[in-house]
């Protein structure tokens, strides 16, 4: 086998391996094993596995559910489904102040575990930013962008 033939054989094999691997991943081969967070509905479906295990829950902070106890540094809020509000929202309790962008109606991912009483005890609250980048609306005080949870 000449060097050129060997090289081109390597090329074909490398492309087949690369294409095959990509195909398997794209067709969902590892999709089910790669779960970053559960939605509230998925959390309810897997409620038996959720208690005690470290899991992530993702969804939207429901309007009118945010409660911040300054003295205890305890944050309570409810996470609902991103699109439809059919699934029962999950009550989340977290210690410490959340990131500055935290507010009602924003996407969040919380890391922690499900307690037996159905409350999600979060060690970490992360705020999701959408892919939208907008100029501020006219007349909005720019400083209000930096409102912290104490002012909610």
């Amino acid at each position, binding site marked *: 086998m000449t*060097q050129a033939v060997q090289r081109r054989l*390597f090329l074909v094999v490398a492309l087949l391996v690369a294409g095959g691997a*990509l195909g398997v991943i794209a067709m969902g081969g590892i999709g089910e094993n790669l779960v*970053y967070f559960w939605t509230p509905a998925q959390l309810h479906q897997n409620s038996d596995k959720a208690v005690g295990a470290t899991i992530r829950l993702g969804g939207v902070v429901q309007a009118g559910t945010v409660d911040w106890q300054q003295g205890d540094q305890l944050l309570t809020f409810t996470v609902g489904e991103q699109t439809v509000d059919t699934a029962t929202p999950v009550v989340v309790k977290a210690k410490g102040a959340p*990131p500055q962008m935290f507010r009602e109606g924003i996407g969040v991912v919380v*890391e922690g575990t499900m307690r037996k009483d159905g409350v999600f005890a979060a060690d970490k609250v992360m705020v999701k930013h959408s892919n939208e*980048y907008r100029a501020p609306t006219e007349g909005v005080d720019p400083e209000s962008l930096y409102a912290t949870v104490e002012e909610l």
Partner: protein
Amino acid sequence: MTSRSYVAGAALSAIGFALLVVAHYLGLFVAPREAMMGDVGRILYVHVPTAWGALLFYLGAFVAAIGSLWSGRRGWDAATTAMVEVGTVMTFLLLVQGSLWARPTWGTYWTWDPRLTTSAVLAAAFGVVLLLRRLIDQPARRATATAVATIVAFVDVPIVYFSVKWWNSLHQPVSSRQTIDSPMMQPLLIAAVAVLLLGIGLSVLRWRVELARLLAEEAAPDLPDAPAPLDLSGASGAPRG
């Protein structure tokens, strides 16, 4: 030592750098604050062009790797390495910029979200390609190994791109003209062109160096496997034993 490729590489790098200054002047001082993130949102103009650049230069390296395996010419081999290196520098910058952006917005420097995880894999995979290249001495074998490893590592590039589409993630999905207000689009696009030109310029300069190195390697006589032991006997006249 001047040649056309040197002038082209240096000129593209200089134009890219100048455009980058213009883009960030617009991004920092002219474009409005982002409505939700405030001034922190201006990292958009740094981070998104870096991401596009990293993926594009890996695509370039993938094409060059195919050319290298098909033709066996050292020019393609040098081009593969040059673009893998530029892509890898951009990927490391991407991870650092992303962490700095994530802390004030998401509230954490790092999380094992699909986009972040696949991007970290990208840096590691192409890091291995560069390491592999350093470990092989025989030129033809080194060129083949570099090209095959580049093609295999490239699998992660589309995965990084589609990760936010295929899986639940904390990272935002792909942005478009519809999701970015026009005063913010201008610095973003200028910065993207700037990073592209800078990356092409640096790739051309790196390609020249690599090509010169490969030619020198071929011209040089083979080095002995190990340096000959020094013969000190009688050199200083000192008594032995």
